[in-house]
């Protein structure tokens, strides 16, 4: 559906996107993961035809963005990082305007607008000026704008930024639903978001794609179940000694006492070994009850560190 071939964007000396190639199949939900300034937005801006690439080409449904921009733009709904809203319009006027510039015919316009407003839950603010809406609502109006005209491809740049946790979950579920009918490319700098929604993840760093895999494989590869934070009711030295004696343990360290009579420890397992059960039985047998145990998610920085160093080892 979307093919990106050897895409490069230079701003003077600075290379924002460096020879990026990937393709997205019909119906896929692909996540773009990367820190700020990695080139996510630039890539999306090029795919949607907002800016032009220095080199390389983008094809959507077989149409080249340079040769047939209108055909490409018809097939893409784009929600930029800052939703392009006219603050002096009401929600309904705005969506009406978007329908007009997307050349939706009058007969279906009204019905599809209702459906979209229902879907993103902005029906109750339809008569309000966009300038008086909260960030969460503006974000949804931005999403509604992208959905107008039922484009087969949706490109969403950080769709959940600035939303409260409940809204984030709603939007994620909405995106998952949309994924049944649309091809979706979304960007994020939050790992759990991408793994919750996407079928495939592209990690981009400094303008280059450093990894491309399913979230599960990526997690496995990065071993994010390998570290446990455990709070044990027991004396620090004995607990540490006990855990160190188990098989498959890479390191154990104490992170201090946060509750009287207990100790917090950080256990790191060797690769591909699940140590949760052995840790439980060992401490239980010694009658040091576990009060808390949770696997530690790797932060994005750590994943980047891992991915980038792994890439270096390969090359």
């Amino acid at each position: 559906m979307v093919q990106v071939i050897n895409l490069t964007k230079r701003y003077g000396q600075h290379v924002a996107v460096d020879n990026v190639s990937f393709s997205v199949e019909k119906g896929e939900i692909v996540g773009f993961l990367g820190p700020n300034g990695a080139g996510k937005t630039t890539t999306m801006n090029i795919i949607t035809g907002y800016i032009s690439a220095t080199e390389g080409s983008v094809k959507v449904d077989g149409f080249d963005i340079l040769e047939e921009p209108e055909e490409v733009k018809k097939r893409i709904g784009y929600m930029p990082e800052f939703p392009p809203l006219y603050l002096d319009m009401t929600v309904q006027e705005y969506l009406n305007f978007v329908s007009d510039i997307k050349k939706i015919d009058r007969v279906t316009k009204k019905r599809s607008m209702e459906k979209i407003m229902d879907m993103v839950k902005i029906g109750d603010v339809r008569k309000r000026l966009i300038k008086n809406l909260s960030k969460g609502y503006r974000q949804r109006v931005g999403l509604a704008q992208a959905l107008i005209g039922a484009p087969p491809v949706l490109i969403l740049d950080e769709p959940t930024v600035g939303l409260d946790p409940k809204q984030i979950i709603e939007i994620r579920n909405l995106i998952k639903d949309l994924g049944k009918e649309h091809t979706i490319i979304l960007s994020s700098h939050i790992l759990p978001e991408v793994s919750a929604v996407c079928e495939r993840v592209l990690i981009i760093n400094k303008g280059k794609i450093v990894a491309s895999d399913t979230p599960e494989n990526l997690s496995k590869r990065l071993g994010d179940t390998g570290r446990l934070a455990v709070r044990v009711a027991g004396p620090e030295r004995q607990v540490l000694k006990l855990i160190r004696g188990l098989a498959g343990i890479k390191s154990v360290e104490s992170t201090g006492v946060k509750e009287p009579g207990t100790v917090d420890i950080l256990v790191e397992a060797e690769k591909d070994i699940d140590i949760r059960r052995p840790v439980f039985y060992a401490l239980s047998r010694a009658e040091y009850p576990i009060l808390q145990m949770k696997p530690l998610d790797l932060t994005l920085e750590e994943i980047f560190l891992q991915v980038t160093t792994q890439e270096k080892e390969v090359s």
Partner: protein
Amino acid sequence: MLAVFRRELRAYFLSPTGYIFMGFFLLLSGFFFAFSNLFPASPSYINVLGSITFIFLIAVPILTMRLLSEESRQKTDQLLLTSPLGVTGMVLGKYFAAVGMFLITLLATCLYPIILSFFGTIAVWEVVGGYIGFFLLGSAFISIGLFVSSLTDNQVIAAVVTFSALLFIWILDWVLQGLPTDRASGIVFACVVVAGIVALVYFSIRNIFVSVVIALIGLGGVAALYITNEFFFDGLIVRALEWFSLLKRYEDFTMGILSLSPIVYYISFSSIFVFLTVRMIEKRRWS
């Protein structure tokens, strides 16, 4: 294009901009109408149209400063440029909206000659011709303002630059009188123009070879012209700059002459600036 036109025209009435423009325009034109028609009881309305052109200096920047600069500041250009609309449709929609706003205001001033017609006979066709000229002149100024607002995302800068550009056109005829008209200065001017074109080419494609070739062709052209028709350079500066003298062509209209050439001139002038605006936005996407 129609959607952008409608939105933009509505935006004028939703924000103070439209009212400020309209109020300012009607206040000053009413003032002139009162002082040159009503008080002296003169039926010559065309004089009013001739003397109120200075309103454009302030009114046009008010009308055009927001057009494209606000779009890129609020990032709403992302919506327009990624829609199937196309840059030309977007620019034309905006241009016609500003022109439409101007036209609405102008229609309101039609009240003045109608008032006059109750008290005497007015030269109807003279007034109609004057209005056509006035409208075309205003549209040409608006096209300059549109272009300037595509250069920056700051409304204030857009307004000030538009004002300066219009002011330059204003004093142009006066400046032209003081410029040298001899042959040598004409040749120097031609060389400066060639240098300007070469610089423009160099900074847009950064290829020394092509730039040098263009420079040689340009200078060769100047030399060839000098050999074949040396009189070409007499008063060249004045003739070249006169092209920008929008007001000079307006004089015909205020004298009651309606000829085709100034009409064509104004329409082509506006088209060129609309075209330049489109190119400017396209260029920004490539940089």
